[in-house]
């Protein structure tokens, strides 16, 4: 897996650039993704966090080109940097270039897309119940992938590979002939991860892989994913609404709101100083197990209708720190502070062109949210 001689450390693995996706509906176009850019580095776990409707799953599907009408990718590119040895299979020229040129996944022909999928880019779907075929045993579902993509292997070799994959994700080989309904939720999710691993992909997109599972099983699966990642050196795009989970496992987190990325930060940065008011609100929406028990406010209001996204910053109607410019001007992702260029935030509070005030501190965030909450509580419960 690691013929990493070729890549410099700085070269990303997958670059999403300015991607927009619309769903065309009779009663208006839903702007599911607008101008989204994120970068996945080699070996990294990139977390995509957001509420339902924030576009996180749509982004996963756009990267794998699984979107079907009425969804339409209206712009942008998804650049994938393959290993030199694999480059030829993905490009029209068929030649191995001296330096690895990226391939735009959104422009691949169906044939090239086919050689990209599973071998380079695999996806683990949200619901383990629905992602497996209930009338075929899991062994056959794993060998099916291998047969399609590696036709040279014979039956026995495929079988051996399936057994090895199951063992790797912690399922006993004697379950090879089990049907999905004979497996528990956690085992099914493991089987799906085994299918994703079948061809040793570089990138695995995991769309809420643990959401339907109980906490203990969820923890086991997460530990399994991390162990496999360390062993096999693939990269992960981990999509979830559970930000507290990402703070444990993700190297980098992109927070999405109403189809846009509003903040990109490492998990330490996010833990220590979330910059975007929405990130702060999200982080403070999870009660904690330890520490003082205090009243939490959550985020007032609800996410916008994507057919009719508010002008300016789409979060401004719910933002306790919004000022005039937020209602008119769209904030773009930029470095949150001069001293570290890594943390990006799309918020006018960090833009000297809009405000000369110091960026808000955690105390200020808390006070403002509390104030909005008190005001609303008083106004509403009359």
């Amino acid at each position: 897996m690691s013929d990493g001689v070729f890549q410099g450390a700085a070269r990303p693995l997958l670059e999403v650039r300015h991607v927009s996706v619309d769903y065309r509906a009779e009663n208006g176009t839903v702007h599911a993704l607008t101008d989204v850019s994120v970068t996945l580095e080699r070996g990294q776990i990139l977390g995509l966090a957001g509420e339902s409707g924030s576009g996180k799953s749509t982004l996963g599907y756009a990267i794998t080109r699984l979107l079907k009408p009425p969804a339409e990718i209206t712009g942008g590119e998804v650049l994938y940097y393959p290993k030199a040895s694999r480059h030829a299979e993905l490009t029209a020229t068929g030649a191995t270039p001296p330096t690895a040129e990226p391939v735009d996944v959104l422009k691949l022909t169906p044939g090239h897309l086919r050689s990209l999928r599973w071998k380079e880019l695999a996806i683990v779907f949200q619901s383990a119940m629905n992602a497996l075929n209930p009338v075929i045993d899991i062994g056959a579902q794993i060998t099916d992938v291998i047969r399609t993509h590696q036709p040279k292997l014979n039956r026995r070799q495929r079988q051996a590979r399936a057994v090895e994959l199951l063992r790797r994700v912690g399922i006993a080989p004697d379950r090879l002939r089990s049907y999905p309904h004979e497996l528990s939720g956690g085992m099914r999710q493991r089987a799906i991860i085994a299918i994703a691993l079948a061809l040793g992909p570089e990138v695995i997109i995991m769309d809420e892989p643990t959401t339907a599972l109980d906490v203990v099983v969820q923890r086991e699966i997460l530990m399994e994913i991390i162990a496999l990642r360390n062993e096999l050196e693939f990269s992960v795009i981990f999509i979830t609404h559970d930000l507290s989970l990402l703070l444990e496992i993700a190297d980098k987190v992109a927070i999405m709101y109403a189809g846009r990325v509003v903040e990109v930060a490492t998990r330490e940065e996010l833990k220590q100083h979330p910059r975007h008011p929405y990130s702060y609100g999200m982080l403070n929406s999870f009660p904690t197990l330890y520490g003082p028990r205090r009243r939490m406010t959550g985020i007032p209001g609800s996410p916008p209708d994507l057919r009719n996204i508010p002008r300016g910053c789409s979060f401004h109607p719910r933002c306790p720190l919004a000022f005039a410019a937020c209602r008119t001007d769209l904030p773009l992702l930029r470095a949150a502070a001069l001293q570290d260029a890594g943390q990006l935030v799309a918020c006018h509070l960090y833009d000297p062109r809009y405000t000369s005030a110091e960026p808000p501190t955690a105390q200020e965030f808390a006070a403002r949210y509390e104030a909005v909450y008190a005001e609303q509580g008083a106004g509403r419960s009359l």
Partner: protein
Amino acid sequence: MSIEPLRRGADAAASTSALSPSTSPAAPVLEAVHLRKHFPVRQLRIGGAPQAVHAVEDASLALFPGRALALVGESGSGKTTVARLLARLYEPTAGSILFRGKPVKGYNRAALLAYRRYVQVIFQDPFSSLNPVHDVRYHLSRPLRVHGHAHSRAQETEQVLGLLSRVNLSPAEQFIGKYPHQLSGGQRQRVAIARALAVRPAVLLADEPVSMLDVSIRLDVLNLLLRLKDQERQAILFITHDIASARYFAEDTLVMYAGQMVEGGPSDEVIQHPKHPYTQLLIAAAPDPDRPVNAPLQARGEIPSLISPPSGCRFHPRCPHAMPVCRERFPGRTDLGAGHWTNCFLYGEGDTGSTAATTHPGAGSPAKGS
């Protein structure tokens, strides 16, 4: 200590006398006493032994005005069955329910109607608990009419508007004519809460009331329920799989595993000093950004089949501290002080036997949960 399974259970006066004066607000409104529920399973073979899902064994709890009790456990732990028994949607196999100290009897229409005048359920999924062909006014006016709180259209409108503003749906005039599909998940759950409030209940049974909602909306709804508890003195049973929100919401927490109650007490005590190995496992598995993800878990696996559950303590096949005695029988309750109790041989025999804790190897100090 205010909420604990009643070991003697026969009479409510005895239970109130056991409460410590500091936290004893009043007599319990609703009590479950040694509730048991087995669901018969259809036989595949004629003449085979009758089988049943042993969903709940010996569940006892008490709810007090102005207090919340959280019932925590994984799916299959029996927590929803307990709620449905208390809501009298199921008839218990054994045990009884006491409302204001008096046993509740009868499953006929009149008896259930009288009971539901005081005890209401809030279901998990607001997308299926509201009828899509009826508007908000209909949902809220039905209980008002059925329970005789409103006698005219004018009274009805006035009370429906009042209910809507109590659940922070404002302007209420706009919401009264809306249909479920015009509302967001959070708004629907507020309507469901308003519907429960319409009968002017004393007890709310909230079965995972925020699990289906978006993250940023959960706290809003949770805080609404907190207000109903603190200001309107509702007694609330809060069922959740999220042990952190149990700590946030409820004064007391009960932990269930595979139909058995294994630990309970004041929420902070249970969560910060968990004693039962299962409680420790639940807490170790909960997301916690301050802990490395690969911190090892003490146990693995899932809840066993409840058709033929493990003997004795049902956690023993997964328990890192299991002893031979755990296979033989379920331990009695051991009081740990300050209202905290657990059913685990690591801490003693419980109240069924003598204090024989030291005779078992491994007793004393199990691994910490955090």
